[in-house]
């Protein structure tokens, strides 16, 4: 049986159209886009076309797009560039719920003399805007706040934050890897200076990302070497993957309206069904200010890894914020920042959908979950006698 793949915030299926677009560049068209001969040089046109498609999805102009190897590289490039062009400033503002690509980098910079302020969130995962505003100082070099949280799907008002930063002359970067392709984003109407996106979160393969850098934003490259990407990211262009992410962005733009609505309806059916059929379960994250594809639900008295293993045996893929799945012994830093009670945190299970998610996937999950939770509650010492199963 094909798995019910509900872990699309971790990674997505490569769209068949994307793979088809990429294949020629592994076979007959293996040239180097920088070559003087047309065999290679012609590929530069394919790179340019892909750049236009990526730019179009986020309302940018093509020369504002730098191709990278992944979201992490985009985030690292943006934050380090902002520090490089602001050498006198030693303060970074970020949030307590960032992805490790930003969070671990900021912690690393914090050990090297930078002052890092992590802005908190409320119990629904919404960013504390007053705290953010008061954190901004003349010494602040860069603010990096994600557009959408990967664990809860909660959206942050990055456009407003970007305005606040612009008024104060502070560079603003957003890690938008979970948002791009799922919700409308338009850089023409925003003051965001830099934005990261990742191919494999939107049906391109792993190993390709992009960084939007607004025209006129001071910049220093992370990768030094050749002239590729107009000197902003050295390294031979990964043509096949660039073409792939271009195609993926084109498909996302074409399907976003229709699929966003359909996916949201599926997500709501899944979430509503689970909250109704499993007693003592709760949603983690704001109900509406959220990506259409993500739900994060805690099931009291049980533990998340056990849930995932039992789901896996039924061919259902999800992920968890439990300590046991993180490999770090600590439960999710996102749910901890939200103050989610311990007994809902260790069992927090994330289901994330995509345009390939079907009604059957949701039906299967709705059928399996109550049984799985019931079974684990029968084993758990914390289940009170007489609690509804």
């Amino acid at each position, binding site marked *: 049986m094909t798995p019910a793949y509900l872990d699309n915030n971790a990674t997505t299926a490569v769209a068949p159209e994307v793979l088809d677009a990429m294949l020629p560049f592994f076979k007959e068209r293996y040239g180097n886009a920088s070559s003087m001969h047309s065999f290679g040089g012609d590929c530069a046109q394919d790179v340019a076309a892909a750049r236009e498609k990526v730019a179009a999805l986020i309302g940018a102009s093509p020369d504002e797009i730098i191709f990278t190897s992944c979201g992490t590289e985009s985030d690292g490039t943006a934050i380090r560039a902002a520090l490089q062009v602001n050498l006198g400033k030693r303060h970074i503002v970020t949030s307590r719920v960032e992805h490790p690509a930003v969070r671990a980098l900021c912690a690393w910079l914090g050990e090297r003399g930078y002052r890092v302020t992590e802005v908190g969130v409320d119990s629904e995962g919404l960013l504390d805007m007053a705290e953010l505003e008061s954190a901004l100082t003349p010494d602040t070099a860069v603010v990096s706040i994600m557009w959408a949280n990967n664990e809860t799907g909660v959206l942050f008002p990055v456009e407003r934050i970007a305005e606040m930063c612009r008024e104060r002359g502070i560079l603003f970067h957003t890690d938008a890897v979970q948002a791009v392709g799922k919700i409308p984003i338009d850089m023409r109407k925003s003051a965001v200076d830099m934005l990261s996106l990742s191919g494999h979160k939107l049906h391109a393969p792993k190993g390709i990302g992009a960084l939007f850098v607004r025209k006129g934003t001071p910049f220093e490259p992370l990768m030094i070497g050749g002239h590729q990407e107009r000197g902003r990211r050295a390294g031979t262009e990964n043509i096949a993957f660039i073409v792939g992410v271009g195609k993926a962005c084109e498909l996302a733009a074409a399907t976003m309206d229709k699929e966003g609505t359909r996916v949201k309806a599926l997500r709501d059916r899944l979430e509503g069904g689970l909250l109704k059929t499993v007693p003592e379960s709760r949603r983690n994250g704001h109900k509406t200010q959220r990506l259409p594809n993500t739900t994060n639900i805690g099931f009291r*008295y*049980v*533990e*998340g*890894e*056990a849930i995932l*293993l*039992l789901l896996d*045996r039924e061919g259902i893929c999800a992920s968890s914020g*439990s*300590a*046991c*799945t993180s*490999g*770090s*012994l*600590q*439960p999710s830093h996102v749910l901890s920042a939200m103050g989610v009670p*311990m*007994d809902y945190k*260790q069992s927090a299970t994330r289901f994330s959908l995509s345009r390939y998610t079907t009604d059957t996937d949701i039906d299967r999950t709705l059928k399996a979950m109550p049984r799985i939770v019931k079974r684990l509650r*029968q*084993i*758990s*010492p*914390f289940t009170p006698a007489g609690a509804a199963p």
Partner: protein
Amino acid sequence: MWDYSEKLKDHFYNPRNVGKIENADGVGEVGSLACGDALTLYLKVNKDGIVEDAKFQTFGCGSAIASASALTEMIIGKPLAEAEKVTNQDIAEFLEGLPREKMHCSVMGREALEAAIANYRGEKPTEHDAGEVVCMCFGVTDNEIRRVVRENRLTTVEEVTNFTKAGGGCGGCRDRIQELINEVAAAARAEPRKPLTNLQKIKLIEEVIDREIRPSLQADGGDIELIDVDGNRVVVALRGACAKCLSAEFTLAGFVEAKLREFVDPALVLEEVQR
């Protein structure tokens, strides 16, 4: 995804002896919600001192549930005196191995067993592993750490975290854990050793070479071979890069001989045979 053995998966998917024993003779409770796993073990002990029945309830991951299930299988039908000898390694072996990061699940099993037996005997469970709390995040005491280090021959802080969770939270206690590791190692060295038979000595020397010496030499493209043991005379040959190395003499005296004296017998004398 963890690399769980088939046996572990079987005990997770089909856990044995789940539940409570009403009027149990001994109950052991360890862990907590905050720690991410918890285990309650119930024992029924008959008048002959045999563990007649054991049941458990676990909150935790796959390997925590499997470890508890395995533990009940291992002790049911055994005299208490024998059951109480079950160690965390025994639980891990019963499950055909646990991922290193999950060894704390087997330690939790052993702790619950001890707590249940203490409860059966009317001792307070806290008397058992009392000590000073080292890891505030997971509530692990110095005595627990010392014991796990000793019983499992742990040498790094990371291993201690895998086995007890200590140091896996804020990390503020890692220096103290290292001190405890050093302390246990020093105590082990100071312990008077029982005289070894020649056969035991050869076996131990081989073990120490495999565990402590060979990996370092191989990392430099060399190797070592044990040729003979005659009383306290240990004859070895250096191979590969070591054989031609100008500092081979220092390697032998400063490293190989020192390690063998540390772990086998301080009276050992090393000799090298030339090829």
